[in-house]
């Protein structure tokens, strides 16, 4: 088999193993819960029977590995368990299925992240490339200080400044990003404008700096000096000599920042009260709704692992040493 394929398959296997271990860690968090947990969820007035029934539902009487496999089995089937909220001391159970709670919110989050990525990725790569090309010029230094400042700011600061300027003082965009499924695309985009701009600003700064560093690192290679001494122009050097070797570092940069986007989305959703999975997770952490927290964590971690996997596969598939073995 071709060495590229072998390497990619190995990498995919490693990704699966990681996902397995991560899911086990997320699952095992339940076992670390304190003993009086049933009372905490059901309230002080819960009877012994309701608590016992609840414990049985969680399967706390079975060994951990058995519970893990039954949990993992249901997760694979799309069943993420039942929420802790909506239960009461009297034993009346109005709890909802976690999958049902997450599905619409996951769509919203993916929409917001997707819109941001579509704007941010090309913008950041272009800015990064140009800063690398015109490095140590006034342009580069300005961009450097600006982006360094931006990445140092907490997301919520950027968000509130935007709200202050574009919503409170000048009513350009709504400050609350409430959306519902029946909304038209245009209206939807208008509603998420501020969160999307916030995320874009933060991501672009990060991604641009990393792209610049990756390209400059590449431009220091002896073969780039050789290309110059062979008479290649600036654009030829970038497009013909640097870029074919730059896919791997650029893919890594993009994946890293999209993964960062996943995290940034949590805070931004809370600021703009956007009905996404990040806000759901924060609410569930406050109310200690463990099944929902677990499901959200699993989704975030899975996305993260997948993104890094894709970046590595791109890096492998564009590596001339692997593509053209001896």
């Amino acid at each position, binding site marked *: 088999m071709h060495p590229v394929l072998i390497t990619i398959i190995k990498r995919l296997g490693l990704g699966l193993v990681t996902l397995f271990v991560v899911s086990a860690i997320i699952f095992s968090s339940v076992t670390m819960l304190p003993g009086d947990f049933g009372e905490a969820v059901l309230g002080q007035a819960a009877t012994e029977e309701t608590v016992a029934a609840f414990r049985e539902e969680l399967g706390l009487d079975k060994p951990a590995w058995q519970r893990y496999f039954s949990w993992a089995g249901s997760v694979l089937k799309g069943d993420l368990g039942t929420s802790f909220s909506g239960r009461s001391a009297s034993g009346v159970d109005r709890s909802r299925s976690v999958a049902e709670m997450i599905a619409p919110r996951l769509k919203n989050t993916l929409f917001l992240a997707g819109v941001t990525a579509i704007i941010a990725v090309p913008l950041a790569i272009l800015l990064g490339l140009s800063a690398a090309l015109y490095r140590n010029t006034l342009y580069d230094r300005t961009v450097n200080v600006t982006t360094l400042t931006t990445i140092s700011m907490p997301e919520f600061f950027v968000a509130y400044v935007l709200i202050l300027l574009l919503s409170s003082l000048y009513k350009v965009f709504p400050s609350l990003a409430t959306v519902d499924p029946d909304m038209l695309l245009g209206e939807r985009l208008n509603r998420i404008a501020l969160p999307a701009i916030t995320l874009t600003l933060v991501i672009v700064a990060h991604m641009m700096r990393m792209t610049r560093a990756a390209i400059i690192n590449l431009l220091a*290679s002896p073969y780039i*000096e050789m290309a110059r001494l*062979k*008479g*290649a*122009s600036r654009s030829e050097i970038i497009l013909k000599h640097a870029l074919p*070797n730059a896919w791997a570092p650029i893919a890594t940069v993009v994946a890293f920042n999209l993964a960062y986007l996943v995290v940034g989305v949590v805070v931004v959703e809370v600021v703009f009260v956007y009905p996404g999975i990040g806000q759901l997770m924060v609410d569930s952490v406050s109310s200690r709704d463990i099944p929902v927290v677990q499901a959200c964590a699993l989704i975030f971690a899975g996305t993260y692992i997948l993104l890094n996997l894709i970046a590595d596969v791109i890096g492998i598939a564009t590596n001339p040493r692997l593509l053209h073995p001896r």
Partner: protein
Amino acid sequence: MSASDDVLLEMRDVHIEGFSDEQWHPIIKGVDLVLKRGQIMGLIGESGAGKSTLGLAAMGFARAGCRFTQGSVTFDGTNLLSLKDSQKRKLWGTRIAYVAQSAAAAFNPAHRLIDQTIESANRAQVRPESESRQDAVDLFQSLNLPDAGNIGSRYPHQVSGGQLQRVMTAMAISARPDLIIFDEPTTALDVTTQVEVLAAMRDMVEKHNTAAIYITHDLAVVAQMADVIKVLRYGEEVEEAETRTMLNSPKQAYTRSLWSVRSLEKPQEKGDDIVLSMQGIHAGYGKVRVLHGIDINLPRGKTVAVVGESGSGKSTAARVITGLLPPSEGAVHFNGHPLPAALKDRSTEQLRQIQMIYQMADTAMNPRQTVEEIIGRPLEFYHQLTGREKEARIAQLLEMIELDETFLDRLPSELSGGQKQRICIARALAANPDVIICDEVTSALDQIVQEGILKLLLRLQKEFNISYLFITHDIATVKAISDEIVVMYNGKVVEQGLKNDILQPPHPEYTELLLSSVPEMDPDWLTQLLASRT
């Protein structure tokens, strides 16, 4: 000399500065250089002489962190320093070409060799692309590259270093430039490979009547290539002369000192008292076997030189002796008793008896420790010296290596290359060892400094009856220091014997190839060698 029609390149009063330690420092301090069409000039000097910088300056190019401050570089009637980058690019690759030191790093890993070879010719549209491709194949052919028709479709990592260096010569010649700058093109190669590459390059420039500037630190190499030689030191010209004149009667003392190491020769002495012996050593890393049953004997107070090319296993042998790499078979005997195979099983006393000096003195000393700490540590560790006693012994050691107490509080970064190596020698001496393993200790140093170090080692040997196991690939160094020679090839000992016996013909086949490939200070050496080999 005034500019006449046959002058191709004229550099006048060139000054170049480099930025380091937060300041601009002069690198080239007003050098003149005149090159006629078809002429080959050798540019030689030690590290830091500015020869690479001057070579690139001939293209009107200054590396990152360097700048021209004065002077002119006139190529074929145009001052390159007054041209814009876009105008210089029209000349680069087509009329002036560059051959870099490390071919492996200078080829783009993402493109096929032939595409890189014809890149400049294509850009300038010297001829239709199909013709350039055919021409490249012809060039590969005449450079004796194997499978010339197809080697161009390979990628850089798929061919060897020597082959890459030849492909780079083809790349330089492809657009038929008027001038090629060769920047130490054979330095990274083994001697036996170097000969082939040298011959190929010389052939090429002669055939196409290309002018060239050949930069190297090796006078013997430049003697084979150049019509005239210019010697540089500290960014200034020492002297320039026609090659034969320069070799036979150099005017400046500095030029004479450049090959002084070659005149150093220790009379051989036979020794029967074997202090260290390797017996039937097999060793390797993981599944890779490097040493296949080698025997080496080191007589007391004598020097055994271990010669061989990279990959011959000579450094691995040193690792086995020190205990860093326990052998899979065989044992190392010291004073007739077997040494424990692994480092951790050896006693402090056993460790003290065998010391090591490294090739790169830079990395052999902790950059954050002062000379006093570096030399003082073995004194504390092996001899439990402290306070006054230690200070006195350090002073004594410094005196032995011809340095004084002003060096005590210096950091390695505040020493020159030769001084660093001397401190490493003092550190080894501090243990009072019986055996010192010297791993290419002079090969990173300039000629004149090499001589000083070798003389020092010889003197110390006489004074303290130390035995040296001297690993090197340089035959001149072998002549200068050894009593016996061990020739290694592919993890085996080809032969061991007294120096003169090994150096006198007849030789086994490999020794013959190795010895005959070492360039000699004779302009006709390469021509004669090639004639004798065919």
